[in-house]
């Protein structure tokens, strides 16, 4: 009787442990630091990121109504304002907002959405690396 309940307990805790580790693994696979993400984009593009090019890219328009800075501000160490909804957008610079660029899936999702609004296409790995390199130089 005792052993039975024990084994049942251990089986359940084993299952819980498996589930938990699977969950943790899933989190680990997406968690990253901004520097890691930048390194990834740089490796993808095959050439080193250029900080000045990132700033230029971020603050100028690309044939459409908006630039990145339209919503994020020219110096995104401060909160921005959504140009369509007027909602506040938290600062983009990782030095100010520790949550930024720590989740590869989220980063990819927002690059995809926003590049589509600003350029009408997805951004290249080189463009992402440049922007991220510039953002990483910004201090509060």
């Amino acid at each position, binding site marked *: 009787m005792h052993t039975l309940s024990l084994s049942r307990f251990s089986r359940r805790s084993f299952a819980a442990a498996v589930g938990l580790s699977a969950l943790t693994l899933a989190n680990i696979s997406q968690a990253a630091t901004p520097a890691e993400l930048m390194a990834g984009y740089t490796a993808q593009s095959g050439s080193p990121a250029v900080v000045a090019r990132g700033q230029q890219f971020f603050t100028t328009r690309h044939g459409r*109504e908006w630039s990145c800075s339209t*919503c994020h501000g020219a110096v995104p160490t401060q909160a921005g*304002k*959504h*140009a*369509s*909804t*007027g909602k506040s957008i938290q600062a983009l610079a990782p030095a100010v907002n520790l949550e930024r660029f720590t989740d590869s*899936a989220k980063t990819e999702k927002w690059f995809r959405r926003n590049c589509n*609004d600003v350029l009408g296409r997805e951004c290249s790995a080189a463009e992402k690396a440049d922007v991220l390199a510039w953002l990483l130089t910004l201090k509060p």
Partner: protein
Amino acid sequence: MNMASASPDNKSGQSAETRKILVWDIPIRVFHWLMAGCFAGAWLTAESESLRLLHVTLGYTMCGLVAFRIVWGILGTRYARFSTFVRGPKAVARYVGSMLRGQPEHHIGHNPAGALAIVALLGLTLVVTGSGWANYNDIAGKWLEKTHAAAANVMLAVVIVHILGVLVSSWLHAENLVGAMIKGRKPGRPEDGIRSAWRSVAVLMLAAVVGFWWLQWQDAPTGDGFGDFQTISMKFRDDDRDED
């Protein structure tokens, strides 16, 4: 079988006295086409930030429309009421079976399969707009974003099945169901028709929707925050100037 003049209809016993009767009141028809338009618009603006306010506005409109539809499903005219068309799985299976045999049962109001699509779409709308509202207000995390997208995808699938069902049923019954949802009339016996089209309720609903859109428009940062529309209208203005 489809030649109504040559053969007696399978169930409703259409006879010489059959003529076009009013089945769908105006609130139902306005609701239907507003829902269709809002869903299409929200779908097309889903991937855009510049059209985000438009996307959100269309979603909230759908939520309000469904709230109205639920009330109208209790208080409305005969064929609008849930009690007259929501049926169990057996009735749905029987109807789909009759449809597959090429001899669908005839229903003046919603058929059981159509009713299922309606209930699914109403429920999905609440899931999609509820999760969308929560996302827009940064209430929950990634799982809710996924719920929003997944429910919207399921909704699109139901819409497609609904449209196919309407086309197949229209063809099998030799009856224009799309036209019926526009004009409100279907062939039937006079005593089966509804008495009032409830134009007043439809006008109130439409006024509420347009009023809400106007408010959203006013609240937008630039006075017209529907993004690209501003760009488009500015371009037109520029074009006008060039012509001068």
